[in-house]
């Protein structure tokens, strides 16, 4: 490790909450690969399909009637920013997955606009992942993934697919959009799994 001449830098106040190579931002940066899709709520549904006996869908209205959780988590983007204490509201993925028996070990999340990302099913269970539609007490803005996005805060934020429309359950893992463009297949920020080979 070579010292960069003349560099002093800043340090986070509470570094125990900031994964290696990350810095804390107070803003909420936006990153996406293409135009923001605008799906009307009456055309929106959330579908679990693939390695299941029958695909199951929830309309927007049905989604709104599911038990909700309000919670605060830290999020970590692979582009180096970390945002602490982000307030969300949404539905635990356990609520969806518990109704759909499957032998699958992997999920490929799919979104409006064609985005996909892969996550092991175990990482979506056990109260670790949600479909969220509110940020800071208000409906989620389209540029941040509204009407609803996946939220898997223990992985880098590209796994928290914006504009989520469902999960394709799979017995074999299949890389998603960024995973095929050289980003890490799993994406644990605490192990700094940013890119392929990390």
């Amino acid at each position, binding site marked *: *490790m*070579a*010292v*960069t*001449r*003349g*560099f*002093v*830098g*800043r*340090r986070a106040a509470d570094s125990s909450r900031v994964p290696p*190579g990350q*810095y804390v931002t107070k*803003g909420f*940066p*936006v*990153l*996406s*690969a*293409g*135009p*923001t*899709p605008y799906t009307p709520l009456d055309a929106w549904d959330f579908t679990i399909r693939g390695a299941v006996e029958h695909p199951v869908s929830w309309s927007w209205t049905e989604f709104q009637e599911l038990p909700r959780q309000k919670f605060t988590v830290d999020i970590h983007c692979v*582009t*180096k920013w970390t945002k602490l204490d982000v307030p969300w509201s949404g539905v635990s993925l356990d609520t969806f997955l518990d109704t759909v028996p499957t032998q699958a070990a992997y999920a490929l999340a799919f979104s409006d*606009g*064609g985005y996909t990302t892969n996550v092991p099913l175990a990482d979506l269970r056990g109260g670790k992942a949600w479909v969220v539609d509110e940020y800071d007490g208000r409906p989620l803005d389209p*540029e941040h993934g509204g009407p609803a996005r996946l939220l898997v805060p223990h992985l880098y934020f590209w796994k928290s697919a914006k504009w989520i429309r469902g999960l394709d359950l799979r017995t074999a893992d299949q890389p998603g*959009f*960024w995973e*095929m*463009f*050289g980003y890490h297949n799993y994406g644990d920020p605490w192990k700094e799994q*940013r*890119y392929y080979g990390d």
Partner: protein
Amino acid sequence: MIETIFETPRVKTISLAVPDWPGHRAGQHVDVRLTAPDGYQTQRSYSIASGPEDQYVSLTVERLEDGEVSPYLVDELRPGDELEFRGPIGGHFVWTDELGGPLFLVGGGSGLVPLRAMLRHHRAVDSRVPVRVLCSARSLELLIYREELMKLAADDLVDISITLTREAPSDWRGYRGRIDPALLSTTGWARNKQPLTYICGPTAFVETAAAGLVALGHEPGRIRTERFGGTGV
């Protein structure tokens, strides 16, 4: 580090001689890592400003007032200093001649950086792909790559349009004001040409440009975007 050039008072292009550089595609970025004497490290991503065919790898860095890394790179880094970085990274916001076109490049402020790499690649390989470029800057003084853009516009295959959003010289013959669907329609391609579009800039700029093109009937799958938090549109 070989040399730095001021593009505007707050934006500098840094040229680096990189041993064993594996080569890059226009539009890719690198992760720069700085290390303090006590071992503290921090990293940021910067788009590559040079074309794949250029001798040096260049980064164009906008100095953010509250930044941690950009003030170091703009104010402190000197020729002869060594910089640690990783890359090239990214495989979506890239253009190579084989991807064809016609090409529409839309850049706001320092969002022009990866688009400049694409234009350099276009020229270096003598591409036959027609290109239209729409640049947005606050003023002519704050438009990066000003002279290079003027020279590129001499190429029959490259059309460059500039809009100035805050102030323009009294004899300014380009566009004024923020981008909107009318300006995208005037300066870009008709949708039946099925252009390949790259948009880069701050979030609000990218949202406006991408949504405007979709509203004009362009295929969302042919529009690629990259956003950064910097200012300067």
